[in-house]
C-alpha cells in the first residue's frame, strides 16, 4: 500500500471540488504549505486567500462569506481551528447554521516533533458539543479527498479533520464512495468489533489481521463521520459481537469512544473499551514512536482486544 497523508487529500479534494463549485473560496492562516491548501492555491490562485496568523478573524470572515451564499473552507491546524477559534466557530458559524467548512489538519498526537502545544487531542470533543456541527475524520487519502468533494452538496457547518502523517491508502479511488454519516464495515467478524476513526482505521485493520491468525474474528468498522454518528452500524455491532473496542487518535474524553458509548448505553448496553489518549498532554517525538507510546498501534490494539475478550 502506498502511503499519503490525509491532508494531501484535503488539498487535492479542494481542487476537485472547485471544478463543481466555482463559488468555492479557500481561506488559510499562514499555514497553506502545511495544510496543503497550497495545492489548491497553485491551481486556483484567485480563489485562495491568506488571513495571516489570525484564526479567530478567519473564522468570522468565513461566516460572513458563507452568509452571502458562497462555499467557503477555513483552514488551519486543529489546535487553532477548534481550539483558539472555538468561540467564533460556535457563535459566528454554528449558531447561525452557516455553510462553513473547517479544514483542520495536524490533528492528534501524530503531529510529532512539534510537541504538546500543537498536538490537538481535544478537537472532536469540542466540536461534538456544538449543536448542529458535523464532524468528519477521514481514514486515508482517498477518503479524505472524497469527503472534501462530498461537501459540494452537503449544507451546514462541518469540521473536517486531517492528519499530518503519511498513512496507508487502503481505499480504491475508482470505486470508493463517501457518504456523510455512514460508517463502513471494512472487515466483517463476529467475536468482537473494533470501531476506529481516522488514522487508526489502518492500524485496526492490521490488528484484525493478526487476531485472525490467532483464531479471533474481529469486525472492523470505520466511523469517518463522528457526528452525526451512524447509530445503526454501532447497535448492530453491539448486538452481534457483544464487545466493542474503540480506537482514536484523540482524548478518550469526548471523542469517538464517548460517542459510541452514548449510542451503546442508550440502545444496547454492552462492554465498550476506549483506546485513545488518556487525559494527558503529549510531547515531542517521531509520530510513529508517539503512537506506539500511547498505545495507538496495531500491536496494542491486539492486546486490548484480547484483554477485552477475557472480561
Amino acid at each position, binding site marked *: 500500500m502506498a502511503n499519503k497523508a490525509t491532508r494531501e487529500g484535503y488539498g487535492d479534494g479542494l481542487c476537485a471540488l472547485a471544478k463543481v463549485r466555482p463559488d468555492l473560496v479557500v481561506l488559510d492562516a499562514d499555514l497553506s504549505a502545511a495544510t496543503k491548501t497550497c495545492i489548491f492555491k497553485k491551481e486556483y490562485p484567485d480563489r485562495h486567500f491568506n488571513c495571516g496568523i489570525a484564526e479567530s478573524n478567519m473564522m*468570522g470572515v468565513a*461566516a460572513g462569506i458563507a452568509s452571502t451564499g458562497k462555499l467557503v473552507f477555513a483552514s488551519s491546524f486543529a489546535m487553532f481551528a477548534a481550539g483558539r477559534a472555538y468561540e467564533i466557530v460556535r457563535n459566528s458559524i454554528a449558531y447561525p447554521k452557516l455553510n462553513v467548512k473547517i479544514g483542520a489538519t495536524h490533528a492528534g498526537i501524530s503531529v510529532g516533533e512539534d510537541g504538546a502545544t500543537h498536538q490537538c487531542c481535544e478537537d472532536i470533543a469540542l466540536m461534538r458539543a456544538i449543536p448542529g456541527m458535523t464532524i468528519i475524520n477521514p481514514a486515508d487519502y482517498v477518503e479524505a479527498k472524497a469527503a472534501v468533494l462530498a461537501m459540494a452538496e452537503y449544507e451546514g457547518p462541518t469540521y473536517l479533520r486531517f492528519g499530518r502523517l503519511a498513512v496507508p491508502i487502503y481505499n480504491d479511488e475508482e470505486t470508493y464512495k463517501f457518504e456523510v454519516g455512514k460508517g463502513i464495515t471494512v472487515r466483517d467478524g463476529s467475536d468482537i468489533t473494533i470501531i476506529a476513526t481516522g488514522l487508526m482505521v489502518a492500524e485496526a485493520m492490521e490488528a484484525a489481521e493478526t487476531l485472525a491468525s490467532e483464531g479471533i474474528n474481529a469486525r472492523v468498522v470505520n466511523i469517518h463521520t463522528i457526528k452525526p454518528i451512524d447509530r445503526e452500524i454501532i447497535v448492530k455491532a453491539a448486538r452481534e459481537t457483544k464487545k466493542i473496542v474503540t480506537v482514536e487518535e484523540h482524548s478518550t474524553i469526548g471523542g469517538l469512544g464517548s460517542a459510541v458509548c452514548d449510542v451503546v448505553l442508550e440502545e444496547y448496553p454492552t462492554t465498550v473499551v476506549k483506546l485513545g489518549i488518556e487525559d494527558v498532554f503529549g510531547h515531542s517525538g517521531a509520530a510513529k514512536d508517539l503512537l506506539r507510546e500511547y498505545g495507538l498501534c496495531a500491536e496494542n490494539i491486539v492486546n486490548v482486544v484480547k484483554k477485552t475478550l477475557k472480561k
Partner: protein
Amino acid sequence: MDKSLVRDLEIAAAKVRIGIIEGVHSAKAGHPGGSLSCADLLTYLYLHRLNVDPADPKMESRDRMVLSKGHAAPALYAVLALRGFFSMEEMKTLRKIDSRMQGHPDSLKIPGVDASTGSLGQGISAACGMAFSGKLSDESYKVYTLLGDGELQEGEVWEAAMFAAHYQLDNLVAVVDNNNMQIDGKIADVMSPYPIDQKFEAFGWHTITINGHDFNEMEKAFDDAERVVQRPTVIIMKTTKGKGVFYMENALEWHGKAPNDEEYEVAMKELTAHLAELEG
C-alpha cells in the same frame, strides 16, 4: 441635508427610543444605555442610507449591517420595526421565552438581522467576510458594522482591522459608538482603547470623527466614506450613553439594567413629550 428629512429622522429616532424603553422595560432586562447612544445612527442607516427591503429581507443585492455590539439589540429591533420588518408591538416580547426577539440579534429568527452577534469582537469579522465576498463577485452592495468602544478591547477587532485594510475593503464602513463607558466603568479607566482614530489610521483605515447625534454630520461622513477607494473607513462617533432619557445619560448603572415601572413612566413621559414637540 434637507431640513424636513432631518426632522423626519429625529421623529423616527424618538420613536425608536420609545421602542427601546418599551422593550427593555417589558423584558425586565437588557441594555438601554448603549442602545440609546446608537439609536440615532441606526435610525439614519435603516431609514435613510441602507438599500434594504422589508418585503425581501434576504435580497442578495441588499446592503448589510452587522451589529457587532450585539447588546444594542433593542435599538436594532426598534429600527427594523420602524422600517417595516415587523410590528413595533413585538418590542414588548423582547427576551420573552416564546418570542423571536432574542436578547442578542439572531439572523435565523429575526427578519432584517444580517448576522448573529452578541459575543463582542465577532461582528466586524463577519462584516469583513461579507464585504470581501462582495468584492470577489463584483457586487455593488455596501457593508456597515457598528462596534462599541469597549468592544475595541477585543483582539479580534484588530485582526479584522488588519484584514479589511489588507484586502482594501472600501465597501466596508465600521462605526464606533464612542459613548465612553463599559460595564465596569469609563473605558479609559477599565482599559483605554484611545486614541481610537490613530489606531485605525495606523492599521490603514480612513478615519472620520463625528457627533453621533447629528444627522447632518452622519450624512457628510457616510458620503465621504463612499468616495474613499482601496481603504475601509471607520466613523468614530462621539455619543452620550443613555441619550434621550435624562436619568440614564452618562450614568453607568444603565448599561445593562431595565427601568422599573416608576422609572419607565418617567422615561416615557420625557420621550413622548420630545416626540410630541418634534411632531408639533
